[in-house]
């Protein structure tokens, strides 16, 4: 991890997803749709593979009947420290924020080359194939803090950067450090089992730093060297029955 440049408080926003706790309930998915104005694209588009969710619960099967098991892995943008999506964008629509240690997607810079999406090993990016449709009055539910993306633009999970910024600004105004747990992305906030834990890894006393030290921890496609900011904790097992 490189020492961050610039002034002000530094954070290493990190998400820990405990696969032993994930029940696949999909509360995070809907929370993300609601918070980030993710459009619903309809049956035909979904059938083509144009689902727009920023977080998806991947379900893998293991074994054969009757000893078959299902494994859930919620996958979202891993906010890589060395993100493959960043260097390939010709217009800096995706770039690395040195302050938040996040991959930023700037919608109004994006021209839609989709190079970033091709180069993302996690297939975490989704593209606005068409303009989103929020038939009246569904538009009333749109989150005013998040841009509604139009057609031709790439998007992805932002770790709910609007919430991070709000808390940062509030803490700055009140001249205090950000408390652990104060920043909650919509998915972590909704997660009924607390399988998703979010916080600042640079704060050694934070909950996220504590669980990140777990022996069960691993990162997705770690060998690629992308340095993800999402840490997964392996699911457990029992023996003898």
């Amino acid at each position, binding site marked *: 991890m490189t020492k961050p440049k610039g002034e002000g408080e530094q954070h290493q926003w990190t998400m820990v997803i405990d696969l032993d706790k994930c029940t696949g309930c999909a509360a995070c998915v809907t929370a993300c749709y609601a918070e980030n104005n993710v459009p619903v694209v309809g049956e035909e588009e979904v059938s083509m*593979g144009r689902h727009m969710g920023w977080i*998806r619960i991947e379900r893998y099967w293991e074994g054969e009947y009757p000893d078959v098991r299902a494994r859930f892995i919620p996958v979202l943008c891993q906010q890589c420290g060395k993100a493959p999506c960043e260097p390939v964008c*010709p217009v*800096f629509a995706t770039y690395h924020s040195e302050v938040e240690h996040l991959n930023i997607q700037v919608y109004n810079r994006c*021209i839609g080359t989709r190079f970033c*999406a091709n180069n993302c090993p996690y297939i975490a990016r989704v593209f606005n194939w068409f303009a989103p449709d929020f038939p009246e009055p569904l538009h009333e539910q749109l989150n005013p803090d998040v841009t509604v993306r139009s057609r*031709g633009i790439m998007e992805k999970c932002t770790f709910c950067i609007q919430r991070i910024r709000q808390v940062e600004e509030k803490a700055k105004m009140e001249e205090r450090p950000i408390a652990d747990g104060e920043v909650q992305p919509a998915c972590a906030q909704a997660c009924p089992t607390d399988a998703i834990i979010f916080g600042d890894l640079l704060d050694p006393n934070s909950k996220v730093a504590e669980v990140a030290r777990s022996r069960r921890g691993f990162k997705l496609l770690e060998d690629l060297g992308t340095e993800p900011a999402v840490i997964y904790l392996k699911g457990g097992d029992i023996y003898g029955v």
Partner: protein
Amino acid sequence: MASESTRRDWQEGQEAALAHEEQKLREEVLLVDPRPRSEMNRMVLEAVQRITPGYIALLVVLGLITLVGLFFAWGYQMRWGMGVAGIRRPVFWGMYIANFVFWIGISHSGTFVSAILRVFKAEYSRPITRGAEMMTTFSLMVAGLFPLIHLGRTWRFYWMLPIPNQRELWPNFHSPLMWDMTAIFTYLTGSTLYLYLPLIPDFAMGRDHMTGWRQKLYRVLALGWRGTEEEWRHLMTAMKIFAFVIIPVMFSVHTIVSWDFAMTMKVGWRSSIFGPYFVVGAIFSGVSAVITMLIIARRSLKLHYFIRTEHLESLALLVLIFSFAWTYFFFNDFLVEWYGGERVGHEILTLQARGPAAPLWYGMLFFNILVPWATLWNKRIRRSPTALFLITLGVNIGMYLERVIIVTGFLQRNRMPFDWGEYNPSIVEMSIVVGSFAMFFFLYMLFTRILPYVPVWEVHEGQLTHRIVRFGRAVVTARTNVD
């Protein structure tokens, strides 16, 4: 006396045989079969003016297909969104990029046939350089459209240009797309100038021999060329510089296009061999396309005098050589992927060999390896325009399939099996693809009636420096070096 007469007979016979040899050679080799310059001028200028009703009709049809198939469909796509194309997650790139790579490949023809052969003094290429160079320029124009068509927000394409703006943003030169754009722009500029330079004396010739709008046009384009010693010297120097400079540009263009893929983290794409593999593939398809177009042009423009079987045969040999080279690279890439044992790589190979993409893959192998290898070793086939026409067309079909597989096939498999995908091009995509072919043929056909198809002065120059000489009983062409 008998011996005297026998000797004379023998000598006559010898003479006749040699004359026959000479005659054959003359028929074969354009440069030792000189005709008066005025006649050659006439042939070329007649070809330019060969505007038949069939030609007009075809041009109109192609123009309409271009307008509707390419530009209307493109507009429709811009209005409603990229979704009208068949691309989807995870196949974010589709036919547009495959087409782009294909047309960039075709563009290698002109430079290779013209510049490389010129640099290496392959004299036979003199009459066919123009046709090849035209292919380069027009296929580059078509190719250049595809990255724009492919953009989600085409109307913002200029954000990739390094122009000062109030956002104080410079383009990201880390992105292979920026290298791409730079390379293509350089190549297009270079190849257009390279097409234009040898045209200047021909424009001047046309200006001096024609009337009407062509004369006015040629007067402008000839830049006041009068054929002085000084002018010739400048032209020759410029052409030599361009011929040398355009070659690395050509190599760089297709290498950089290959880097759009090779620089990524995608299994199958990330490969150190992609650069030369793409360049070889491009020349393979480009030279094949030159043969195809020469056969068409020779017939329709009645240029049998200039474009001879020797040209087709030599180029066909090149095709065979590049088929070998392409196969070598293909096999290398395949073997490394297969032997390396990476799972996703295996899945891609499996997809090609047994999946829904299998017909494309086997089609590629058939057209690119089997057909050229089985036929082009045979001199008779190499000398048959019909056979060559079909074979070279096949090569380009094969190379097109290769591009489709590399772009759309490889993207269907990735490290997250949950998110594998499939891809079928939509009607809009196919329409744009068809439209792009129409656009190329439209431009090419249009310009065969505007630009002299054969550089007469180069042929003339060649004929001045070549003659037939006899070495004992051998009849060979000799070349006087005028450089």
